[in-house]
Protein backbone atom coordinates (compact mmCIF):
# COMPACT_ATOMS: atom_id res chain seq x y z
CA UNK A 1 0.00 0.00 0.00
CA UNK A 2 1.22 3.48 -0.87
CA UNK A 3 0.12 6.32 1.35
CA UNK A 4 0.30 9.96 0.33
CA UNK A 5 -0.15 12.30 3.29
CA UNK A 6 -0.61 16.07 3.22
CA UNK A 7 1.47 16.50 0.08
CA UNK A 8 1.76 20.09 -1.09
CA UNK A 9 3.74 21.56 -3.96
CA UNK A 10 4.33 25.18 -4.86
CA UNK A 11 5.94 26.73 -7.94
CA UNK A 12 7.07 30.17 -6.71
CA UNK A 13 3.72 31.70 -5.76
CA UNK A 14 1.54 29.08 -7.49
CA UNK A 15 0.21 26.46 -5.14
CA UNK A 16 -0.28 23.45 -7.47
CA UNK A 17 -0.87 20.75 -4.87
CA UNK A 18 -2.60 21.43 -1.58
CA UNK A 19 -2.65 18.90 1.24
CA UNK A 20 -3.18 15.85 -0.98
CA UNK A 21 -4.14 12.64 0.78
CA UNK A 22 -4.69 9.33 -0.93
CA UNK A 23 -4.10 5.61 -0.60
CA UNK A 24 -3.12 3.26 -3.39
CA UNK A 25 -3.82 -0.34 -2.50
CA UNK A 26 -1.57 -3.05 -3.84
CA UNK A 27 -2.88 -4.95 -6.85
CA UNK A 28 -5.47 -2.36 -7.80
CA UNK A 29 -6.04 -0.31 -10.94
CA UNK A 30 -6.57 3.25 -9.83
CA UNK A 31 -7.78 6.13 -12.00
CA UNK A 32 -6.79 9.70 -11.15
CA UNK A 33 -9.40 12.00 -12.66
CA UNK A 34 -10.35 15.68 -12.68
CA UNK A 35 -10.39 18.69 -14.98
CA UNK A 36 -7.32 19.94 -16.88
CA UNK A 37 -4.88 21.81 -14.68
CA UNK A 38 -6.14 20.32 -11.42
CA UNK A 39 -2.72 18.86 -10.55
CA UNK A 40 -2.90 15.22 -11.70
CA UNK A 41 0.37 15.31 -13.63
CA UNK A 42 2.16 17.18 -10.84
CA UNK A 43 1.03 14.55 -8.34
CA UNK A 44 2.41 11.77 -10.58
CA UNK A 45 5.71 13.63 -10.89
CA UNK A 46 5.92 14.00 -7.12
CA UNK A 47 5.27 10.26 -6.76
CA UNK A 48 7.84 9.46 -9.45
CA UNK A 49 10.41 11.51 -7.55
CA UNK A 50 10.85 14.00 -10.39
CA UNK A 51 9.48 16.82 -8.24
CA UNK A 52 10.11 17.30 -4.56
CA UNK A 53 7.05 18.24 -2.50
CA UNK A 54 7.26 21.29 -0.22
CA UNK A 55 5.31 19.47 2.46
CA UNK A 56 3.95 16.07 3.23
CA UNK A 57 5.16 12.52 2.95
CA UNK A 58 4.86 9.44 0.79
CA UNK A 59 5.04 6.03 2.46
CA UNK A 60 5.20 2.57 0.99
CA UNK A 61 7.82 3.03 -1.73
CA UNK A 62 10.67 0.94 -0.44
CA UNK A 63 13.45 2.17 -2.68
CA UNK A 64 15.77 5.11 -2.46
CA UNK A 65 15.75 5.29 -6.22
CA UNK A 66 12.06 5.69 -7.12
CA UNK A 67 12.69 4.71 -10.74
CA UNK A 68 13.40 1.17 -9.55
CA UNK A 69 9.99 0.95 -7.91
CA UNK A 70 7.96 2.91 -10.44
CA UNK A 71 7.63 2.53 -14.18
CA UNK A 72 6.35 5.91 -15.30
CA UNK A 73 5.07 7.09 -18.65
CA UNK A 74 4.73 10.90 -18.84
CA UNK A 75 2.17 12.39 -21.20
CA UNK A 76 4.74 14.05 -23.48
CA UNK A 77 6.99 12.15 -25.87
CA UNK A 78 10.37 11.32 -24.46
CA UNK A 79 12.01 8.73 -26.72
CA UNK A 80 14.98 9.46 -28.98
CA UNK A 81 13.46 9.95 -32.45
CA UNK A 82 16.35 8.18 -34.20
CA UNK A 83 15.91 4.95 -32.20
CA UNK A 84 14.11 2.01 -33.72
CA UNK A 85 11.55 0.28 -31.49
CA UNK A 86 14.03 -2.57 -31.14
CA UNK A 87 16.82 -0.23 -30.04
CA UNK A 88 14.43 1.33 -27.56
CA UNK A 89 13.65 -2.07 -26.08
CA UNK A 90 17.39 -2.90 -25.89
CA UNK A 91 18.00 0.41 -24.16
CA UNK A 92 15.32 -0.19 -21.53
CA UNK A 93 16.53 -3.75 -21.02
CA UNK A 94 20.01 -2.39 -20.27
CA UNK A 95 18.76 0.30 -17.90
CA UNK A 96 16.11 -1.61 -15.94
CA UNK A 97 16.69 -5.01 -14.40
CA UNK A 98 12.95 -5.59 -14.21
CA UNK A 99 12.40 -5.07 -17.96
CA UNK A 100 10.74 -8.28 -19.13
CA UNK A 101 11.88 -8.85 -22.69
CA UNK A 102 9.39 -11.66 -23.29
CA UNK A 103 6.53 -9.48 -22.18
CA UNK A 104 7.85 -6.67 -24.41
CA UNK A 105 7.97 -9.01 -27.43
CA UNK A 106 4.44 -10.24 -26.73
CA UNK A 107 3.24 -6.65 -26.49
CA UNK A 108 4.98 -5.81 -29.75
CA UNK A 109 3.05 -8.60 -31.42
CA UNK A 110 -0.20 -7.70 -29.62
CA UNK A 111 0.07 -4.08 -30.77
CA UNK A 112 1.08 -5.09 -34.31
CA UNK A 113 4.21 -2.96 -34.28
CA UNK A 114 7.33 -3.42 -36.40
CA UNK A 115 10.64 -3.67 -34.54
CA UNK A 116 12.59 -1.93 -37.25
CA UNK A 117 10.44 1.16 -37.35
CA UNK A 118 12.01 4.39 -36.18
CA UNK A 119 10.36 6.40 -33.42
CA UNK A 120 10.30 9.52 -35.61
CA UNK A 121 8.26 7.73 -38.28
CA UNK A 122 5.56 6.45 -35.96
CA UNK A 123 1.98 7.67 -36.23
CA UNK A 124 0.38 9.08 -33.11
CA UNK A 125 -1.47 5.83 -32.47
CA UNK A 126 1.72 3.78 -32.87
CA UNK A 127 3.71 6.13 -30.64
CA UNK A 128 0.99 5.80 -27.99
CA UNK A 129 1.26 2.02 -28.14
CA UNK A 130 5.07 2.08 -27.94
CA UNK A 131 4.86 4.14 -24.76
CA UNK A 132 2.52 1.61 -23.18
CA UNK A 133 4.71 -1.28 -24.33
CA UNK A 134 7.88 0.19 -22.82
CA UNK A 135 6.18 1.14 -19.56
CA UNK A 136 4.25 -2.03 -18.81
CA UNK A 137 6.95 -4.42 -20.00
CA UNK A 138 8.67 -3.65 -16.71
CA UNK A 139 7.85 -5.78 -13.67
CA UNK A 140 8.02 -2.71 -11.43
CA UNK A 141 5.66 -2.78 -8.42
CA UNK A 142 3.97 0.48 -9.45
CA UNK A 143 3.10 1.45 -13.00
CA UNK A 144 2.06 5.03 -13.69
CA UNK A 145 0.54 6.15 -16.98
CA UNK A 146 -0.22 9.80 -17.61
CA UNK A 147 -3.08 10.14 -20.11
CA UNK A 148 -2.42 6.87 -21.96
CA UNK A 149 -5.59 7.24 -24.06
CA UNK A 150 -5.50 10.95 -24.89
CA UNK A 151 -6.05 11.82 -28.53
CA UNK A 152 -6.23 8.23 -29.78
CA UNK A 153 -8.95 6.67 -31.92
CA UNK A 154 -11.50 4.33 -30.31
CA UNK A 155 -9.87 1.18 -31.71
CA UNK A 156 -6.43 2.05 -30.35
CA UNK A 157 -8.00 3.00 -27.00
CA UNK A 158 -9.68 -0.39 -26.74
CA UNK A 159 -6.46 -2.13 -27.73
CA UNK A 160 -4.53 -0.30 -25.02
CA UNK A 161 -7.17 -1.08 -22.39
CA UNK A 162 -7.01 -4.76 -23.38
CA UNK A 163 -3.23 -4.73 -23.11
CA UNK A 164 -3.46 -3.38 -19.56
CA UNK A 165 -5.85 -6.20 -18.61
CA UNK A 166 -3.82 -8.89 -20.32
CA UNK A 167 -0.22 -8.00 -19.54
CA UNK A 168 -0.14 -6.36 -16.13
CA UNK A 169 0.35 -8.83 -13.31
CA UNK A 170 -1.94 -7.49 -10.57
CA UNK A 171 -0.67 -10.11 -8.13
CA UNK A 172 2.63 -8.23 -8.15
CA UNK A 173 1.84 -4.86 -9.68
CA UNK A 174 -0.37 -1.84 -9.16
CA UNK A 175 -1.47 0.63 -11.84
CA UNK A 176 -2.14 4.32 -11.37
CA UNK A 177 -3.34 6.21 -14.44
CA UNK A 178 -4.73 9.64 -15.20
CA UNK A 179 -7.47 9.94 -17.77
CA UNK A 180 -10.47 11.88 -19.04
CA UNK A 181 -11.91 8.88 -20.90
CA UNK A 182 -14.24 7.80 -18.13
CA UNK A 183 -16.59 5.75 -20.26
CA UNK A 184 -13.79 3.69 -21.72
CA UNK A 185 -11.91 3.08 -18.49
CA UNK A 186 -14.86 2.42 -16.23
CA UNK A 187 -14.73 -1.39 -16.58
CA UNK A 188 -10.96 -1.26 -16.06
CA UNK A 189 -10.74 0.65 -12.79
CA UNK A 190 -10.99 -0.65 -9.24
CA UNK A 191 -10.75 2.74 -7.58
CA UNK A 192 -11.10 6.30 -8.64
CA UNK A 193 -9.48 9.36 -7.09
CA UNK A 194 -10.88 12.80 -7.88
CA UNK A 195 -8.77 15.96 -7.92
CA UNK A 196 -9.94 19.56 -8.06
CA UNK A 197 -7.95 22.78 -7.70
CA UNK A 198 -4.80 20.94 -6.58
CA UNK A 199 -6.34 18.75 -3.95
CA UNK A 200 -8.02 15.37 -3.65
CA UNK A 201 -11.72 15.72 -3.04
CA UNK A 202 -12.89 12.12 -3.25
CA UNK A 203 -11.68 8.52 -3.38
CA UNK A 204 -14.01 5.60 -4.00
CA UNK A 205 -14.32 2.13 -5.44
CA UNK A 206 -15.99 2.18 -8.86
CA UNK A 207 -18.25 -0.78 -8.13
CA UNK A 208 -19.51 0.86 -4.96
CA UNK A 209 -20.42 3.98 -6.95
CA UNK A 210 -22.60 1.82 -9.16
CA UNK A 211 -23.95 -0.12 -6.21
CA UNK A 212 -24.72 2.78 -3.87
CA UNK A 213 -25.23 5.79 -6.13
CA UNK A 214 -26.60 3.77 -9.09
CA UNK A 215 -24.92 6.06 -11.60
CA UNK A 216 -22.09 5.87 -14.10
CA UNK A 217 -18.65 7.19 -13.25
CA UNK A 218 -19.20 10.19 -15.53
CA UNK A 219 -22.49 11.08 -13.82
CA UNK A 220 -20.98 10.58 -10.38
CA UNK A 221 -18.06 12.87 -11.24
CA UNK A 222 -20.46 15.57 -12.39
CA UNK A 223 -22.39 15.24 -9.12
CA UNK A 224 -19.21 15.27 -7.05
CA UNK A 225 -17.54 18.21 -8.77
Amino acid sequence: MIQISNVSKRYSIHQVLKQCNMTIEKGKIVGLIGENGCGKTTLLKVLAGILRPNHGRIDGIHENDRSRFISYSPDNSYFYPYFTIEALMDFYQDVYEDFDRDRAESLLHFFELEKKQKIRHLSKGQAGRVKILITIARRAPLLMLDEPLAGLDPMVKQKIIKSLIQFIDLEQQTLLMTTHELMEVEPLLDDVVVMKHGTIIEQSSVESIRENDMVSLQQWLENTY
Partner: protein
Amino acid sequence: MPLHFQSDKPIYLQIVDTMIHEIVRGRRFPGDKLPSVREYAVEVGVNPNTMQRVYRELDARQITKTKRGQGTFVTDDEETIQQLREQLKQRYIDSFLTDMTGLGFTIEEIISSIDKEKGGTSDDSNQ
Protein backbone atom coordinates in the same frame (compact mmCIF):
# COMPACT_ATOMS: atom_id res chain seq x y z
CA MET B 1 -16.49 -9.73 -27.49
CA PRO B 2 -16.55 -6.82 -25.03
CA LEU B 3 -19.85 -6.50 -23.21
CA HIS B 4 -21.73 -3.27 -22.79
CA PHE B 5 -22.61 -2.45 -19.25
CA GLN B 6 -25.51 -0.62 -17.70
CA SER B 7 -24.28 2.27 -15.63
CA ASP B 8 -26.48 1.76 -12.58
CA LYS B 9 -25.52 -1.76 -11.57
CA PRO B 10 -22.19 -3.23 -10.46
CA ILE B 11 -20.30 -4.71 -13.39
CA TYR B 12 -19.57 -7.95 -11.57
CA LEU B 13 -23.31 -8.61 -11.12
CA GLN B 14 -23.96 -7.92 -14.80
CA ILE B 15 -21.35 -10.48 -15.77
CA VAL B 16 -22.88 -12.98 -13.33
CA ASP B 17 -26.24 -12.39 -15.08
CA THR B 18 -24.67 -12.89 -18.49
CA MET B 19 -23.22 -16.19 -17.31
CA ILE B 20 -26.62 -17.33 -15.98
CA HIS B 21 -28.23 -16.44 -19.33
CA GLU B 22 -25.62 -18.45 -21.18
CA ILE B 23 -26.22 -21.47 -18.98
CA VAL B 24 -30.02 -21.26 -19.26
CA ARG B 25 -29.87 -20.79 -23.05
CA GLY B 26 -27.64 -23.84 -23.31
CA ARG B 27 -24.62 -21.95 -24.57
CA ARG B 28 -22.72 -23.36 -21.64
CA PHE B 29 -23.41 -26.92 -20.59
CA PRO B 30 -23.42 -28.54 -17.16
CA GLY B 31 -19.86 -29.52 -16.29
CA ASP B 32 -18.31 -27.14 -18.89
CA LYS B 33 -15.01 -25.61 -17.93
CA LEU B 34 -14.99 -21.81 -17.80
CA PRO B 35 -12.06 -19.76 -19.12
CA SER B 36 -9.48 -18.67 -16.54
CA VAL B 37 -10.19 -15.44 -14.70
CA ARG B 38 -7.64 -13.56 -16.76
CA GLU B 39 -8.74 -15.02 -20.11
CA TYR B 40 -12.34 -14.13 -19.42
CA ALA B 41 -11.38 -10.66 -18.15
CA VAL B 42 -9.53 -9.98 -21.41
CA GLU B 43 -12.43 -11.35 -23.46
CA VAL B 44 -15.04 -9.21 -21.73
CA GLY B 45 -12.74 -6.20 -21.28
CA VAL B 46 -12.89 -5.80 -17.51
CA ASN B 47 -10.43 -5.59 -14.66
CA PRO B 48 -9.20 -9.05 -13.52
CA ASN B 49 -10.09 -8.12 -9.93
CA THR B 50 -13.70 -7.63 -11.03
CA MET B 51 -13.66 -10.99 -12.79
CA GLN B 52 -12.24 -12.63 -9.68
CA ARG B 53 -15.29 -11.33 -7.86
CA VAL B 54 -17.60 -12.75 -10.56
CA TYR B 55 -16.10 -16.20 -10.08
CA ARG B 56 -16.38 -15.94 -6.30
CA GLU B 57 -20.03 -14.95 -6.62
CA LEU B 58 -20.81 -17.79 -9.06
CA ASP B 59 -19.17 -20.27 -6.69
CA ALA B 60 -21.02 -18.83 -3.71
CA ARG B 61 -24.35 -19.27 -5.53
CA GLN B 62 -23.26 -22.81 -6.46
CA ILE B 63 -23.71 -22.04 -10.15
CA THR B 64 -20.09 -23.04 -10.65
CA LYS B 65 -17.60 -25.07 -8.75
CA THR B 66 -13.91 -24.20 -8.58
CA LYS B 67 -11.64 -27.21 -8.20
CA ARG B 68 -8.21 -26.46 -6.89
CA GLY B 69 -5.61 -26.62 -9.62
CA GLN B 70 -8.14 -27.62 -12.28
CA GLY B 71 -10.28 -24.57 -12.91
CA THR B 72 -13.90 -23.52 -12.62
CA PHE B 73 -16.77 -25.65 -13.95
CA VAL B 74 -20.47 -25.07 -14.55
CA THR B 75 -22.49 -27.06 -12.02
CA ASP B 76 -23.76 -30.43 -13.23
CA ASP B 77 -26.58 -30.37 -10.72
CA GLU B 78 -29.77 -30.37 -12.85
CA GLU B 79 -31.84 -29.02 -10.00
CA THR B 80 -29.67 -25.89 -9.66
CA ILE B 81 -29.93 -25.22 -13.39
CA GLN B 82 -33.69 -25.76 -13.31
CA GLN B 83 -33.88 -23.25 -10.46
CA LEU B 84 -31.91 -20.72 -12.48
CA ARG B 85 -34.36 -21.17 -15.36
CA GLU B 86 -37.33 -20.64 -13.08
CA GLN B 87 -35.80 -17.56 -11.44
CA LEU B 88 -35.00 -16.03 -14.79
CA LYS B 89 -38.52 -16.69 -16.05
CA GLN B 90 -40.03 -15.16 -12.93
CA ARG B 91 -37.80 -12.11 -13.23
CA TYR B 92 -38.74 -11.41 -16.84
CA ILE B 93 -42.43 -11.94 -16.15
CA ASP B 94 -42.29 -9.61 -13.15
CA SER B 95 -40.58 -6.89 -15.11
CA PHE B 96 -42.97 -7.36 -18.07
CA LEU B 97 -46.00 -7.12 -15.78
CA THR B 98 -44.61 -4.06 -13.99
CA ASP B 99 -44.12 -2.32 -17.34
CA MET B 100 -47.53 -3.31 -18.71
CA THR B 101 -49.57 -2.47 -15.61
CA GLY B 102 -47.58 0.75 -15.41
CA LEU B 103 -48.91 1.57 -18.87
CA GLY B 104 -52.44 0.96 -17.60
CA PHE B 105 -53.20 -2.48 -19.06
CA THR B 106 -55.20 -4.89 -16.93
CA ILE B 107 -54.07 -8.47 -16.32
CA GLU B 108 -57.08 -9.67 -18.37
CA GLU B 109 -56.11 -7.51 -21.34
CA ILE B 110 -52.52 -8.75 -21.13
CA ILE B 111 -53.56 -12.40 -20.95
CA SER B 112 -56.00 -12.07 -23.83
CA SER B 113 -53.29 -10.39 -25.93
CA ILE B 114 -50.86 -13.19 -25.16
CA ASP B 115 -53.53 -15.78 -26.08
CA LYS B 116 -54.21 -13.97 -29.33
CA GLU B 117 -50.50 -13.73 -30.05
CA LYS B 118 -50.07 -17.44 -29.38
CA GLY B 119 -53.19 -18.30 -31.43
CA GLY B 120 -51.98 -16.04 -34.23
CA THR B 121 -48.63 -17.74 -34.57
CA SER B 122 -50.05 -21.26 -34.39
CA ASP B 123 -52.68 -20.32 -37.05
CA ASP B 124 -49.89 -19.06 -39.27
CA SER B 125 -47.94 -22.25 -38.88
CA ASN B 126 -51.04 -24.31 -39.69
CA GLN B 127 -51.60 -22.61 -43.00
